[in-house]
């Protein structure tokens, strides 16, 4: 029973490729199953507001009259509840890493909703 039983592992890691990458010069390859961030295909969005009600952290705001869909990405926990709750399937998750930011901001997407009378006519 001697000391330094870790010799083999230590020598191996001296001569093998490091496990880390030189970020930001290199980036980690994105795994296929990554959740990523929420994206709204606003052309199919009907501004019903179900996603905002389902969100557990209150990251989404939907203003039907103004036609805006707002997401506070810093509150979003990427759970995917809004994607599953959306009745039109306009929400999806884009599996990519986000770049860090210096300021907090809200992402606003605007859609003009035609007046219902005009649509009928």
């Amino acid at each position, binding site marked *: 029973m001697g000391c330094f039983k870790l010799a083999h592992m230590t020598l191996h*890691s001296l001569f093998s490729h490091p496990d880390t990458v030189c970020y930001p010069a290199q980036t980690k390859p994105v795994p296929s199953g990554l959740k990523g961030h929420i994206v709204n295909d606003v052309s199919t969005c009907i501004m019903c507001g179900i996603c905002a009600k*389902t969100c557990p952290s209150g990251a989404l705001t939907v203003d039907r009259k103004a036609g805006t869909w707002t997401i506070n990405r810093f509150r979003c*926990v990427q759970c995917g509840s809004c994607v599953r709750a959306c009745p039109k399937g306009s929400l999806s998750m884009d599996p990519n890493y986000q770049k860090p930011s210096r300021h907090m901001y809200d992402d606003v997407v605007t859609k003009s909703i035609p007046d219902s009378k005009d649509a009928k006519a």
Partner: protein
Amino acid sequence: MGKKTIIPFGPQHPVLPEPLHLDLVVEDEKVVEAVPQIGFVHRGLEKLTETHDYNQFIYIAERICGICAFGHSMGYAETIESLMHVEIPPRAQYLRVILHELSRMHSHILWLGLAADAFGYESLFMHCWRLRERILDIFEMTTGGRVILSAVVVGGMVRDISNEMLADVRTRVQSIHDEYQQICNTFLNDSSVQSRLVGVGVIEHDDAVSLGMVGPFARASNVNNDVRSLGNGGYGQLSDFQPTLDSGCDCYARVKVRLQEVSQSARIIDEMISHIPDGDISVKVKGSPEAGAQAANTLEQPRGECYYYALGNGTKYLDRMRMRTPTSQNLAGMAQALAGCDLADVNMIVLTIDPCISCTER
């Protein structure tokens, strides 16, 4: 007769994963008594059932603790399913067990790294954590998250893991396990490690039972209390499950129990992946729990037995959600083990209960 001094330990201390305060009453390098104090991470999460309905609360339950995250989401979902009398499909049960056992492997390897750090073996700590990164890569590939997985919903799983991906998971787990043998060898056979672990923090079997200890902390004192033996959920499909017990009663035995549990988890994952059935992964859950309905559930998390209780009141907000985590049971055992030890061994003993104070205080 030496003079008694009180040395405060924590809440900020390099060896502690989470804040815990101990007042050590010391007499000439020997600890006479230890008075624990918790409360630094209390966030009042159980009160959030008032503003978040039972579907949204699962994301709060996950965030009680980073290490036991998957365990809490699985235990919570099982409790609500029992409250609303929902049966989940068998494939979802198998997937939950596979991810939970991966979570156990990652938690124990993380703990082994911290234990090595506690007695000063920094390079062993870094190798353990480097190995753990490969398990986190498996999580990222299958569920999309590294630490907080968000893979479980009430009624099943969020997304399926295809059979090809499961075969890939199996090969990865096998290669992690092969490299893990060297770490095992170091912990068990290195003489410098043994001199820090053997005979430290002894708690006999009878004390362990009367103090109500749970988890690997108690199994190292030969207390058979593994909830997985009850065969709840996917664990009932295992062909043969024997809890890992050891009668050493000291820190070395606790390290040995956790080392063996990692190997056992790798075997369980292998068996589950070979026998996983095809089918749906979730059922739609509608409505709310009935007024006055109660459900209780236990789950064997990496740190021990975790108890969940839910009380419904007719609306989609639960009246009460209680999560009793294993570390709160082990605090009394820790205070007992600290009495009479050397000051230099305090780190090791505090760490052998695998303290998850965020879970204790929620």
